[in-house]
């Protein structure tokens, strides 16, 4: 489906929700599952068959992943069911290195014979890669990973009756339709389960499992020649966490629906923002997307090295910028953290078997690190900080964000507004675009309010803003405190060819930026 995917998977569907840190935290064990069995299939034996075949065919390194995923999607639109769907996918992928060049092959047939065939195919492809080779690929060292890990989950959403899920969606959808101006409503719920086994010729053998849950509602008010929307808890798919059904109930979709509908109705008669330069306070959800696009992607080392140039683009960041580039103001500190319980960006090991880590990308405004892989990390004189993830059994791992967060500041939100003489407060993304070096961006939001004399005033509709990345982050003079900080899950970050969709996350709180261009093209 090129049309939907080309539109929706350009980069991001953002989703969010507060992260729980309860008793159901992630589990990581050094216990080795020598004989993990899935439906009668001895997955470790199959991985071993693949690795043996790759080595026999001449691979200097190989790894194999078996991935078993299930999804459930439910959507109600204006009282009518648009989707009740369950999908399952299962397969094996083998990555092989020979003569310093990569090959990868994959199959939906998970048997020892097929695994060996896939491995030999991967080696043959790697030999072809060597026909147009550069410097041989070298992997930075890592202790072979062995053990199991699972994400936090309270109530398994796949065990919750469909009736209960649909009843909640129908109630939320109905509550959205309380306003006559709201003529189109949507309520959505999704669940994702992944079990993954990884082994390498270096001796790694891991098993990981995760469950993710997400939900959201949208109210559309449609006037003559105009559509405005209001979403909760976020646009583009709602909120997502590594969690179970308890996350869905915590969102309280039904309780939030009347406010969402009222705001959508009010937006129809609200004015556009006057074009010009404004001091801008951006809500946490939009700050999360701003971090994603203008800090997360440009600090992926494969982009910096030009490896993604033809599709997603490169980066304005250069290799020599680490330790010197003034990325933003002193208020801007950004971390990459795969250890936050409940975040979509968390795991035990990445898809190269590198353990989950927390690392600084920007410290008090200065670029201090990049997101790396075993292949790329040596270019900045480091070892991998564990950012390689693949979208399923049929894709190779790429450098993907984990939880890339703007660390909290010290401000209370009300104090920040009171400290802003004139400006604009905006919430919830509805449009995003950034250039191929991640410099010139333009974002649109669903709603905004004028700030006049330190108070929120008149509502404005679909405010947008534009800027250049380092100047914009340089204009950040305040970030709200941890009380206002939350992790926002983004379940649809696109990258790579063939396209891959990563589940990532961003911690963010409302923040203020001075003198930003708003109202572009209105």
């Amino acid at each position: 489906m090129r049309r939907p995917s080309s539109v929706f998977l350009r980069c991001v569907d953002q989703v969010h929700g507060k992260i729980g840190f309860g008793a159901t935290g992630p589990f990581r064990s050094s216990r080795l599952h020598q004989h993990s069995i899935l439906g009668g299939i001895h997955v470790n034996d199959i991985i071993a068959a693949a690795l043996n075949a790759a080595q026999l065919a001449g691979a200097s390194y190989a790894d194999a992943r078996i991935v078993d995923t299930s999804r459930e999607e439910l959507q109600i639109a204006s009282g009518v069911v648009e989707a009740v769907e369950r999908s399952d996918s299962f397969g094996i992928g083998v990555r092989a290195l020979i003569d310093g060049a990569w090959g990868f092959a994959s199959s939906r047939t998970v048997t020892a014979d097929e695994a060996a065939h896939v491995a030999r195919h991967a080696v043959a492809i790697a030999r072809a890669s060597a026909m147009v080779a550069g410097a041989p690929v070298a992997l930075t060292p890592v202790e072979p990973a062995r053990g199991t890990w699972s994400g936090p989950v309270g109530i398994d959403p796949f065990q919750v009756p469909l009736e209960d899920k649909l009843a909640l969606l129908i109630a939320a959808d109905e509550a959205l339709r309380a306003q006559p101006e709201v003529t189109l409503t949507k309520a959505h719920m999704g669940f994702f389960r992944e079990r993954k086994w990884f082994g390498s010729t270096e001796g790694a053998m891991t098993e990981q499992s995760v469950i993710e849950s997400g939900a959201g509602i949208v109210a559309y008010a449609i006037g003559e020649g105009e559509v405005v929307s209001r979403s909760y808890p976020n646009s583009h798919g709602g909120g997502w966490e590594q969690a179970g059904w308890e996350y869905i109930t915590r969102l309280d979709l039904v309780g939030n629906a009347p406010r969402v509908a009222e705001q959508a109705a009010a937006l129809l008669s609200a004015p556009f923002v006057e074009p010009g330069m404004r001091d801008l306070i951006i809500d946490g959800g939009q700050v999360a997307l701003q971090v994603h696009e203008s800090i997360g992607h440009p600090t992926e080392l494969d982009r910096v090295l030009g490896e993604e140039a033809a599709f997603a683009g490169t980066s304005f960041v250069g290799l020599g910028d680490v330790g010197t580039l003034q990325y933003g103001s002193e208020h801007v500190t950004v971390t990459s953290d795969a250890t936050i319980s409940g975040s979509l960006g968390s795991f035990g090991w990445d898809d190269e078997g590198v353990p989950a880590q927390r690392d600084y990308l920007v410290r008090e405004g200065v670029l201090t690190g990049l997101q790396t892989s075993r292949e790329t990390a040596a270019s900045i004189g480091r070892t991998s900080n564990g950012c390689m993830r693949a979208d399923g059994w049929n894709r190779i791992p790429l450098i993907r964000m984990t939880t890339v967060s703007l660390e909290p500041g010290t401000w209370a939100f009300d104090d920040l507004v009171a400290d802003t003489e004139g400006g604009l407060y905006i919430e919830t993304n509805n449009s995003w675009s950034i250039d191929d070096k991640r410099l010139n961006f333009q974002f649109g939001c669903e709603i905004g309010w004028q700030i006049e004399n330190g108070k929120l005033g008149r509502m404005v509709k679909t405010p947008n803003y534009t800027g250049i990345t380092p100047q914009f982050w340089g204009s950040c003079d305040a970030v709200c405190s941890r009380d206002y900080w939350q992790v926002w899950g983004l379940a649809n970050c696109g990258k790579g060819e063939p396209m891959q969709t990563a589940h990532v996350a961003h911690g963010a709180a409302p923040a203020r930026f001075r003198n930003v261009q708003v109202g572009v093209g209105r």
Partner: protein
Amino acid sequence: MLMTPEEARALARKAVSMTHADEAEALVAAESSSLTRFANNRINQNVAEENALVSVRAVLGKRIGVASTNRLDDASLQAACDAAVRAARIAPEDPSFPGLPGPNAVREADRAVRATRGFDAEARAAAVGSIVAQSSGRGLSAAGKVRVAEHTIAVANSLGVDVGQALTGAQATVLSSGADSGSGWASFLDADASKLASEALGAEAADLAERSANPGSLDPGEYTVVLAPEAVADIMDFLAYVGFSAKAYHEGRSFMSNHIEDGVMSEQVSITDDALAAHAMGITFDYEGQPKRRVPMIEYGVATKPVTDSYWAAKTGWDNTGHALPAPNPYGPMPLNMEVAPGTASIDELIGSVKRGVYVTRFHYVNVEDPISVLLTGMTRDGTFMIEGGKLTRPLKNLRFTQSAVSALYWCDAATKERKFVGTEEGASFVPGLLISKFTFTGQTK
């Protein structure tokens, strides 16, 4: 070995027979694909995939459930069929659901090319070598891909729909970049991999990269633009997504809503969806197994009709044009074989007609700011030039545009005679270059 259309149809019929519901439909989508990716003048990623998916839609009265799996053993298939029925049993009724469509004759088309099936890893590497040599020999850096794929699609349902088709696709893209901020782009798409002229494609991108070195500034404002086909295809994508669907029309979200028979674009603009054209790529039936029909959506600037599927045809009273996406489909029907009518000029003649304007090779990261006016924002990329006195005079740093696509096409003055396929074999637009007299740039990168 990828399953044949006959095998896929048999599998679809089997899934239908295993689905114990009032009505049932099964879609089989099998794929064998390989993609060789290159960057920095070397192959950096090289992947292959074999997959097959069976998706089952079960209908109980007006209740619908869908389940899919890529495990094709009997037990897994039965589990998917049962899951679809369970979902249908619980789903609320959709009073507007008209039932699954019955069988209708589908035009057969042979769109699977043997040469593409045989385009193996060595052939792809050889093609990459030819492409890369055009950049490396000039001190430039090439990145891109060479991809081949074969697909088998089949649909069957309990009312007698039973269709299948194989198709192939070969695609190559090249980005050539220089140290002095110049970059150029070239692309290829065809069902037949043997038509890939690697050296020429590499040279096209490298030429553009050399020509666009040391780009300069341009003030924001309204300009005349000449859009190369790649840029035009991006605009078509978004018109299809937010404008050409009967669902968007019915919900009042389309620029065509309440404007059928109105002149909404220039008389120079005609946009048709036509999967049946001799030159078209893709399948000739939709994902409900219904024949795709030729649909003129814009005729000489006049909004004529959106595309439909069985659901939206029944709901609106229009004919079913055969544009269903796989179920469940919250997007509504979608045109996947769009064509923009050609003009009579060459791209050089379009450029030659412009006193002062901008030439755009392609766009990057386009998104919708307002769906009804199809207000888009995005960047130019890989070859943006100032046009002065009918000539490309100097390269420009990438520009940001914030522009209604409908309005841009209202100000379309001419199109090229030559057209090009852009996209993938499953959904490619066949588009010319366009001359547009009013197009708004709102910023520029550093």
